[in-house]
């Protein structure tokens, strides 16, 4: 009830040690439609559910290529995501101009986190209202990071953020031990299965409202096209993770 006393700006702590503005910003991420990422030894796959503001409109894209070796999936305020996307792309270009090599993934996520934290420590600023799933591949390996409006970032084997993401995370908890050795096809099917857990009863997955992006050690970031998406969604009917265990 006393929340409203301490939630006016970022420079006010609550007696419980919370920054309410930052927590409210994280709520904005939870309102965005679901996006998830999962990785194996050689690939990272990003899946997201696209929203259509009205029947007349197109679907809002949620995955953006940052560089050949890096991409993000967003949940939350799209406008804020655009700013961070532009920043990340600029940093990658500058790094490539100076060193002729790809920006290390963890380092760029760190920079984004620094930028986000800065917004949480000023009277005149507000935190970014977007969470990113950053998929990237560099000499250190295959990476999947999550960034928050709070300025924290975490590395994951698989993660889902956005609306009803808990259902997808529950799916991951059951099956993530298979991901490391999965091939690309299995990884995509796992991702789509996880998203399927998070859609509403009257919704269905189709090639229009789902976005799948893949990144591989020898593969630049690409989106699956409509036909490929249709094929994978059709395969979902018969996809059984248990059979993957029997193979091993």
């Amino acid at each position: 009830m006393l929340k409203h006393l301490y939630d006016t700006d970022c420079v006010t702590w609550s007696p419980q040690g919370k920054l309410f503005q930052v927590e409210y910003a994280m709520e904005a991420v939870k309102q965005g439609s679901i996006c998830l990422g999962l990785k194996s030894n050689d690939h990272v796959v990003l899946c997201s559910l696209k929203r259509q503001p009205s029947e007349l409109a197109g679907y809002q894209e949620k995955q953006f290529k940052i560089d050949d070796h890096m991409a993000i999936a967003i949940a939350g305020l799209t406008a804020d995501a655009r700013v961070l996307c532009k920043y990340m792309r600029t940093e990658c270009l500058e790094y490539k101009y100076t060193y002729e090599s790809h920006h290390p993934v963890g380092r760029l996520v760190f920079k984004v986190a620094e930028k986000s934290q800065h917004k949480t420590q000023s009277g005149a600023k507000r935190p970014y209202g977007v969470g990113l799933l950053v998929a990237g591949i560099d000499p250190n390996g295959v990476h999947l990071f999550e960034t928050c409006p709070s300025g924290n970032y975490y590395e994951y084997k698989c993660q889902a953020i956005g609306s009803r993401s808990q259902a997808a995370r529950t799916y991951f908890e059951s099956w993530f031990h298979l991901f490391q050795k999965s091939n690309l096809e299995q990884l995509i099917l796992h991702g789509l299965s996880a998203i399927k857990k998070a859609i509403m009863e009257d919704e269905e997955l189709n090639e229009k409202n789902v976005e799948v992006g893949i990144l591989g050690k020898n593969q630049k970031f690409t989106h699956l096209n409509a036909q490929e998406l249709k094929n994978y969604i059709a395969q979902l009917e018969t996809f059984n993770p248990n059979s993957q265990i029997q193979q091993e």
Partner: protein
Amino acid sequence: MIFNSELSAQQQHTTSPVVTGGSVIALAYKGGVVIGTDTLCSYGSMAAFKNVEKIAQVSKNTIYVSSGEYSDFQQVVKELAKIDRSALQYDDGVHPSPRDYGNFLARLSYKKRCKINPLYLQNVIAGFHNGERYLALVDIYGTYLESNFVTTGFASYFCKAIISNYWNENCTLDQAKQVIRECFKVLFCRDCRAHDVIQLGYVDEQGVHVEQPERVETKWDFNGFKTRANEKLHTQ
């Protein structure tokens, strides 16, 4: 006292070097890259500093040498070390590869050249990364060239024939070192700003090895010198 603040505010542009280092010769061999340079810094025509060790280890698997203005060399070593230290700041275990250093130096040299205030250097960067050897030349203008052999200064004129005849990119380390020693023998004869003490350093899979300076064998009792057969005698 009158301070002429205009003079001190004016930025000077490097037009000619003051303390200079001599030629650098770098050769790739089977399993790495070896660089040789002499240990002299000249003050014009004076051999001012004769014990200068000029092979800089920039990171675990990269070495950097240059010929030209020595203070610029020292500054570049600091700049390159800064990059390596940034890995500590980010704490992510990512270290620049030799190629990253080479490209960075090319960008830096080009930037300074564009402001008509160059780093008065011919730079050589050598390294070994991911099982591959690396050798590049970055010149005063910021030109960046990767190659299996690199020479700067007078070595470009005198030594290419020697390198061409006695070296190939798959020779052994000792063969490559021997070629470099031969080259410096010739340089000491013909280059007025050369010195007979040289230092060799090489990078291979195990890392960087910089050797102690060594004196190059010199031979002066050639018949041509003794009899002066090629020289025209001046007559009254």
